[in-house]
């Protein structure tokens, strides 16, 4: 029932409709078309997850470095208390999109196996990879992995 494409579509729906404050808004077509053909890294995080303090600088770096090549990083926050997420973001700024999932329904949908978890979806929407946990020591390896999955640099 939950194929990768359906999951991505659901995510896009939630992404576009779950703005700060969580009010439901109709799907924004611009958002969807913007993310088709991109490599999407979805990272589930929480304010109480200590390794997330270390993962954010790396995610920021990845978004900055490979955004032009088609990487989109989306952080899904699972805090029940929104204020805690806000406090975390003040301490550890995120330079990528944040989506709020306070009820955990998105986490449930994706059957998140641990905190934090990153899912990588390819340009066709297929699930290409999953990482449970964040280790400082594996950053280089994960970056190489992303580089291999990104659309090749188009000569201009």
């Amino acid at each position, binding site marked *: 029932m939950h194929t990768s494409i359906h999951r991505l579509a659901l995510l896009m729906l939630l992404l576009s409709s779950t703005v700060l404050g969580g009010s439901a808004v109709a799907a924004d077509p611009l958002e969807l078309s913007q993310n088709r053909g991109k490599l999407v890294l979805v990272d589930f995080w929480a*304010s*109480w997850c*200590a*390794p997330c*303090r*270390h993962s954010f600088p790396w995610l920021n770096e990845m978004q900055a470095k490979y955004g032009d090549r088609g990487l989109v990083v989306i952080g899904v926050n699972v805090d029940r208390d929104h204020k*805690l997420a806000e*406090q*975390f973001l003040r*301490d550890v700024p995120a330079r990528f999109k944040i989506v709020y999932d306070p009820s955990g329904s998105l986490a449930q949908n994706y059957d998140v*196996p*641990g905190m934090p978890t990153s899912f990588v979806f390819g340009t066709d929407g297929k699930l290409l990879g999953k990482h*449970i*946990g964040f*280790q*400082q*020591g594996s950053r280089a390896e994960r970056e190489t992995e992303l580089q291999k999955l990104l659309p090749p640099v188009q000569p201009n």
Partner: protein
Amino acid sequence: MNDDANFNAALAAATCALLGASVPVHAADEEAQRWSFDTSLLYYGESDSRVQDISAAVAAQRDFGDDRKLSLNLTADTLTGASASGATSLDRAQTFTSPSGKATYSTSAGKVPLDDTFKDTRFALNGSWTQPLARLYTVSGGLGFSTEYDYTHLGANASLARDFNKRNTTLSFGVAYSQDDIKPVGGAPVPLSQMLDVGDLRNKRNDDTKNVLDLLFGVTQVVGRNTVVRVNYSYSDSSGYLNDPYKLLSVVDPITGDTIGRVAAGGQGPNGVYLYENRPDSRTKQGIYAEMKHAFGAPVLQLSYRFMTDDWGIDSSTLETRLRWPVGADNFIEPQLRYYTQSEADFYRSSLVAGQRLPQYASADFRLGKFDAVTVGVKFGHRTTSGNEWSARLEYYQQSGDVPGDQIIDRQAGREQYPDLNAVIAQFGYRFGL
């Protein structure tokens, strides 16, 4: 919000540095502060001029990232005062030879004899390293060392933990081994030999050793969003010199229950017949410990129960509870209650009866007797703006024991049979990061 929540794989020592001596410490800001410190200053004082102890402890932890941690603990203790020697009280004054064999000390009529304990300073150092072995495995190893002038301890420990069920369940196994050297002042006395006059060291022998092997199996289970439970099985095997070289038994008259008198030949010495104790040279203990922590919103309740049994005939139960109650955003108050009860060792004797056959093992050490103990206390904590924490703890400990009815002889019934203990514990703590 406090973000120092990453110590799920930390190990905590319970015994004197026997198993996993790393003490997890909380840093105020995890990123900038790599070293965390937890310090404490403690005063322990018993009533009636008995034991007083002042100790200072520093627990340091260095985070090397990716769940790798180094822990170092240093403790210094100074002990003064005296503890009950095992001899029974009498209607007249009693004189004993001091452990060094060079002097005597006395106990007034009607008082429980306290041994002439000397000032003693102890230092203990423990270190341990913890790291993941694979994603769901955590391994840890540590070393411990402590020294005081009549006792040296050296120990090593290792443990392995594995998570299951999305880290809702953790299974742990640990092993610790220690080797202790005992150098009693004046030499270890020949067990069940008589206390001799000053200068007479005929029944004093040399140093001795003791080995302890500890095994621990544990299951930790997350039961709900607000509750976590832990159950441990522990096994401990000690062998070697397990006696207390300073503890005695009075030899008493079978009719009156009074200590048999003697005259110190040519000088100073005991004015009664006292024998040094003797315990078996091995002891096997087993225990089950169960603990639960439950959050009722902000307050957290901790409840634990431990049952221990050994081949010396001692069974004990310990019930403990604490309730951590936050007061505002930066403070907390935590009342604590502990109830402990133990049965006496098979070879526990309040005194030995003259004329009866000497048992193979005998000890009047109150710590091997039958008693109940209660601790009531409260702890206060305050978090500063920089994220460090001050705390103060005050506790009152009371131990009251019973001598088995069949061991009380005539006049002993009117005297204090068991050296009941009352102690006050005051502790100040400070946690900070660098």
